């Protein structure tokens, strides 16, 4: 069944490009939305019809080795959600129907790549799908062919290719050590041997490569440029899910399935996580570009996720996964807010804004929800994931890091409050008296994500224990 998650988006994109493009163009939005909705449904509802069918014919042709656990499920759901939201955002921003169509195609390829990353159980396959995602991301960043976007894409290509080189070198070393590229085989080979220089080198290469992909400090150089210069919809997609799937998820997968958690590795993760969380937040404080501020905020939040992973405990992993989900929700939401504001005002400079809340009430309200969730204010969803991460840090004995995490939260609140104050509150600039709220196709996903943030925050405690327990299996094997 899961093979379909990879195949369907690709085939969708492939078929859309066959003849009858005029019909296809009209269909494309619906097909794409349906695919993403199906993906979410498959994950969310275990009894969903598609989950039961396992076409024998398909199994005979495709002998894919795929695996699903709680972490992958969270990722798959996030991918579906953010892709759907990106689709809606995009339909408002691109006027040209050809552009819209092309964007949808690239989006489908990226989703196919990310689903592959999440499902792969072989390190080389994982690498291949990472590349698919990377290629699709380049195209998405440079999609408008504006100078800044091209520059951002170029920086992403360069640093991403460095990451690729490091990763492929790591894969080669793993292969050298174990003679296989399968997760389980490498894991058992590593267990059988002492931690030699070679293995340490391989792990260092891999971890660094994934830090680059995930945009952790000090490996983050490409991220603010790429996020802020990309088209609105691409920013939502990149910040919402791509870096999480390509960087953070793979990192977790490598650690859980291959490298295991040694104390040294944990210290590296915790340090880098805390460093990103704090420095990212501090850097966000003085940004004047709406999207740049959100980019640094992303770096900071990814730092939190890595802090959770760095504990090496079930609780920490569950917290990290939950934060990935929450981050996907609130950061997509915030990037959409910034897109709405940019569309209305034609600028991203915060210092020129003010009082937009009265003109754009939905955008203002949802951005407050997103910001507060990001800062970890109860009862929003972000509170629970941060709380779990902090508790995990504390109970794992990393009390200093727990305190740092709390401090980071304060900083997060600080920059978001200053953002809110200067964008949505205060006096309206006379220049922007006639601006209007964004269109429905942007408002709908905003409201949807706002409701999710609030709803998850309120109802999560009911299923929290179940959610955390499901991560036992992730760590256990």
């Amino acid at each position, binding site marked *: 069944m899961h093979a379909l998650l990879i195949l369907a988006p690709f085939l969708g994109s*492939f078929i859309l490009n066959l003849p009858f493009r005029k019909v296809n163009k009209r269909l494309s939005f619906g097909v794409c939305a349906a695919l993403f909705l199906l993906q979410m449904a498959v994950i969310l509802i275990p009894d969903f019809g598609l989950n039961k069918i396992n076409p024998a014919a398909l199994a005979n042709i495709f002998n894919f080795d795929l695996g699903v656990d709680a972490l992958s499920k969270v990722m798959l759901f996030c991918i579906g959600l953010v892709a759907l939201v990106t689709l809606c955002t995009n339909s408002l921003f691109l006027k040209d129907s050809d552009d819209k169509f092309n964007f949808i195609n690239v989006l489908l390829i990226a989703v196919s790549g990310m689903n*592959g990353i999440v499902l792969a159980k072989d390190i*080389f396959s994982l690498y291949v799908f990472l590349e698919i995602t990377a290629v699709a991301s380049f195209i998405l960043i440079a999609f408008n062919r504006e100078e800044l976007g091209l520059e951002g894409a170029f920086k992403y290509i360069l640093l991403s290719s460095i990451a690729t080189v490091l990763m492929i070198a790591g894969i080669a070393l793993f292969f050298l*050590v174990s003679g296989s590229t399968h997760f389980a085989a490498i894991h058992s080979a590593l267990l059988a041997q002492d931690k030699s220089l070679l293995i340490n080198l391989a792990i260092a290469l891999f971890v660094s490569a994934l830090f680059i992909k995930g945009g952790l400090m000090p490996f983050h150089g490409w991220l603010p440029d790429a996020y802020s210069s990309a088209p609105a919809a691409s920013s939502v997609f990149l910040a919402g899910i791509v870096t999480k799937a390509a960087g953070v998820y793979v990192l977790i997968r490598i650690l859980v399935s291959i490298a295991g958690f040694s104390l040294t590795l944990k210290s590296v993760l915790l340090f880098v996580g805390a460093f990103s969380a704090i420095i990212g937040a501090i850097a966000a404080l003085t940004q004047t570009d709406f999207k740049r501020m959100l980019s640094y905020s992303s770096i900071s939040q990814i730092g939190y996720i890595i802090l959770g992973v760095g504990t090496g405990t079930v609780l920490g992993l569950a917290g990290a996964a939950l934060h990935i989900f929450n981050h996907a929700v609130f950061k997509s939401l915030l990037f959409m807010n910034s897109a709405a504001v940019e569309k209305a005002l034609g600028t991203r400079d915060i210092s020129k804004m003010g009082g937009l809340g009265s003109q754009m009430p939905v955008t203002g309200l949802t951005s407050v929800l997103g910001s507060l969730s990001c800062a970890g204010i109860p009862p929003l969803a972000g509170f629970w994931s941060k709380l779990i991460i902090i508790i995990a840090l504390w109970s794992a004995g990393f009390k200093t890091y727990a305190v740092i995490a709390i401090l980071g939260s304060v900083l997060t609140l600080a920059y978001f409050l200053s953002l809110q104050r200067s964008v949505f509150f205060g006096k309206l600039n006379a220049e922007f008296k006639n601006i209007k709220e964004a269109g429905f196709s942007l408002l709908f996903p905003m409201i949807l994500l706002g409701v999710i943030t609030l709803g998850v925050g309120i109802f999560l405690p009911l299923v929290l224990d179940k959610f955390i327990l499901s991560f036992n299996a992730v760590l256990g094997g």
Partner: protein
Amino acid sequence: MFLDLIILILLVIAALWTVMTRSLLRASLGLALVSAILTLIMFNMDASLAAVFELSVCAGLIPVLFISVISLTQPLTFKEAVEHMRSRMARFWELPLIVLILGVILVLLSAKFKAKLPALETQASARFVLWHLRQLDLLGQIIILFGGVFGVAVLFKERKKRG
């Protein structure tokens, strides 16, 4: 062993030349040279299938593509080329030094890289590997190719002029 070392050194020199040479044309030739030397190493290591791929695609096809694209551009005048060369030297003068230092470090460390290599699996045929063992990778490669082509089409095709 001695031969390996010489070939490796040659590879490094070729790569350095590729980066620091004065024109794009020479750089693409350098790239072909690097691939060719890499092919030698692969043959030497009994990876004949990979060597053939490397020689045909990386040393053959890609430089041809590069050169054909470069030939469409305006070539630099000699003066500009010298200027370009100078700026590259100024930017990359430390590159050989770094490579040299890294090389020395790696050679010194190589004594410590003592991995217990597992016995190699029985050599399966390339066809079996591709179509049965690495089926997923193959799908991935197809998607990458599709995506790449699509990307080129999207990014470099002249868009319709809007009314």
